[in-house]
């Protein structure tokens, strides 16, 4: 490093026993999260086979009463439990190690315990067949109180990483006055700020409406208001899943590739844009609802299109990062650099493959986002096709890829089989692509999502959906391939935890960026702020950007709630299964 830089301010490296406690906690989040995925994604292919006309649910009677019960478990376990645990672990652990500061362990454990209790409650409510309300739980369908209180606990626990991050950042800032927050911590912080603001929607719905309603304290709820509150959180939740995957792509992947991140400042800009654009657009999920004015829909189209902006920046930055690493490894020509990437590393393979599916998934997102096109595909299998190609591949595969280095890092045990881990990544990629293309195509034939079509009499199934039999067959095939992927993955996951060969634990692969600021801080010399990019400095006042995002979000929701509150339509609850 250059001589004229000041030596780093003394960072007290945490004691080994404290570090061990942090690793154990992270491991607990990881294991609970991936166990939830084992259950949730394990049921997934049953849903896929439903669309290819194979009804396996009657054979599972003692455990599952219906497709809808299975689908509820699938959505809740994957969408809330798996993601929340992995994210709330990572977004505390990675910044703590990046900054070299011990997190507030009480709060972190609190987050874990509260979410674990919540998981227990929702599992009880789902397995006793009392709450087949699907993961969106739209009233007036009414589940058991355990379900709503469980979700309330999960939601509450998931907000707690924010105060931990704020504490660590301010402690770091005291040691390094005038410096911008290191990249991974910055991204984690923006993600949590976005999430904690957005949970206002679902927490209000749960606490004011669903919890008292399920207990019988109030007798009716307004379904339109519930839906709007739900989607106030339900759209940003996609970003809450996605942004931690981006943390890995921006903050770690370049190192795993043996290269450098193309731009640190662009990563920061991407996150701030996602913070601003993800919050106000939730009601685009309600394009088909009555009560939304056409002008309002037009505004939403604009805002929704804007969400593509950060994704397109990411596409460029990641492309450049991959190209640099590939060329450094000797890749030549237009695509040679892509082949030259370290494909033998399962963690890299899983993440780079997930980027490929994201290109297709992101493009189809532009379809749902525009109102006229949405009218064709709304609530058809096109929609789950879209989010399985984005969340189901990008997020799931990136987290799997992270697990491949996290397990050796946290436990000091090597993966039991690199080949099986690679097979898991490729099979997941092939399975999810087959499934997603099948779902999106079937959606164009008007096949509805969330429907137990395989339980229809053969004649009716053929009349309604016969035209879509090829894409529907693809859905089933994709599901079966995903089962194979899961078998490979979980042999590696649990096998390595229990029987992995003892090795020296590898370090966290924090990446270095091109340009003026590097992305890790522990052994980094202090970088005076005049030497950091002006874009990175402009992104640094996180409370300002959160304020802007919250204001836009409030402005976009006030007119909606204003009209709904003046025309309340209250409904009693229905148990319909």
């Amino acid at each position, binding site marked *: 490093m250059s001589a004229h830089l000041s030596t780093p301010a003394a960072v007290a490296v945490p004691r080994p026993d404290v570090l061990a406690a942090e690793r154990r906690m992270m491991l607990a989040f990881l294991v609970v999260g991936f166990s939830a995925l084992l259950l949730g994604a394990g049921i997934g292919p049953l849903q896929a086979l439903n669309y290819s006309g194979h009804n396996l649910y009657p054979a599972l009677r003692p455990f599952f009463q219906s497709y809808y019960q299975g689908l509820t478990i699938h959505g809740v376990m994957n969408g809330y439990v798996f993601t929340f645990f992995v994210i709330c672990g990572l977004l505390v652990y990675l910044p703590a190690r990046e900054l070299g500061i011990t997190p507030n362990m009480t709060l972190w454990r609190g987050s874990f315990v509260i979410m674990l209790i919540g998981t227990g409650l929702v599992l009880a409510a789902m397995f006793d067949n009392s709450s087949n309300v699907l993961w969106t739980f739209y009233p007036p369908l009414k589940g058991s109180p355990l379900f709503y209180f469980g979700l309330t606990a999960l939601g509450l626990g998931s907000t707690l990483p924010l105060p931990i991050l704020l504490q660590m950042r301010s402690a770091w800032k005291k040691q390094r006055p005038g410096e911008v927050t290191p990249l991974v911590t910055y991204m984690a912080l923006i993600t949590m700020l976005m999430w904690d603001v957005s949970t206002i929607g679902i927490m209000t719905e749960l606490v004011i409406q669903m919890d008292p309603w399920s207990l019988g304290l109030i007798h009716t709820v307004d379904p339109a208001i519930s839906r709007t509150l739900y989607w106030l959180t339900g759209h940003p939740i996609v970003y809450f899943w996605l942004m931690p995957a981006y943390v890995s792509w921006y903050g770690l992947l370049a190192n795993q590739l043996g290269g450098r991140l193309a731009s640190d400042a662009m990563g920061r800009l991407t996150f701030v844009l996602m913070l601003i654009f993800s919050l106000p657009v939730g009601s685009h999920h309600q394009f088909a609802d*009555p009560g939304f004015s056409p002008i309002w829909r037009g505004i939403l189209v604009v805002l929704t299109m804007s969400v593509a902006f950060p994704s397109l920046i990411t596409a460029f930055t990641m492309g450049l990062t991959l190209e640099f690493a590939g060329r450094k490894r000797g890749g030549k020509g237009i695509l040679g650099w892509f082949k030259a990437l370290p494909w033998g590393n399962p963690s890299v393979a899983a993440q780079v493959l997930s980027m490929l599916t994201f290109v297709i998934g992101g493009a189809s997102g532009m379809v749902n986002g525009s109102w006229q096109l949405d009218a064709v595909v709304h609530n058809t299998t096109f929609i789950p096709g879209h989010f399985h190609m984005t969340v189901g591949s990008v997020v799931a595969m990136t987290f799997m890829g992270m697990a491949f280095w996290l397990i050796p890092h946290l436990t000091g045990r090597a993966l039991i089989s690199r080949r099986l881990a690679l097979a898991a990544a490729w099979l997941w990629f092939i399975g999810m692509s087959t499934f997603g293309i099948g779902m999106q195509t079937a959606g164009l034939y008007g096949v509805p999502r969330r*429907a137990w079509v395989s339980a229809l009499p053969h004649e009716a199934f053929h009349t309604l959906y016969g035209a879509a039999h090829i894409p529907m067959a693809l859905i089933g095939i994709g599901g079966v391939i995903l089962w194979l992927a899961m078998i490979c993955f979980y042999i590696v996951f649990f096998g390595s935890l229990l029987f992995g060969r003892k090795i020296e634990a590898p370090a966290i692969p924090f990446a270095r960026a091109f340009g003026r600021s590097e992305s890790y801080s522990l052994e980094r010399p202090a970088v005076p702020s005049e030497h950091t990019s002006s874009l990175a400095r402009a992104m640094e006042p996180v409370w300002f950007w959160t304020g802007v995002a919250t204001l836009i979000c409030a402005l976009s929701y006030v007119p909606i709630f204003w009209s709904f509150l003046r025309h309340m339509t209250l409904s009693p609850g229905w148990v319909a299964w």
Partner: protein
Amino acid sequence: MSDLSSMTPSERRFYEAGERQERIWVFIVLILLTVLTIIAMLYVVIDYNLVTKSGGQTPVIGQMTTDQAQPEGVAVETGPNAYTVSLVARMWRWAPGPIHVKQGAKITFRVTSADVLHGFEVQGTDINLTAVPGEIGLVSHVFRKPGTYYIICNEYCGLMHHAMASPIIVDPARPEAEAAQ
């Protein structure tokens, strides 16, 4: 700062080219999104009442279920070549029987629900409207081709959600009416 000096010449070339291209890319993306947005908005404005089906309406509380003047699932003539069909979705049916409508006529569906949410989707068209209890949604469509269409419920509504499908039979317009057009 620290990094610029520690880069090899080839790394530096890559970095500087990348930075230049990044600026160009951001510019292209901004133009692209602006154009896309303008097209989408124009489409919204021009098509206002033509292509757009799920025209919203301020919620009207309970009007439909008590309004006996509107029979369920029957096309009622409301103007020249214009008909209204009122539907009250219930677990798990749309209408008492098949709905007959006329080819080439403007059909306005008034849709509400008597219990939970349902999704009013007509397969093979872009009709897509959520049926919300206590609210009436309006959606208009001109069926250009005669034949049997299916209303399929696409919002989960309980155990028999998948079985909630009803036919719409589009009767061919009379040949003399076609000639007159």
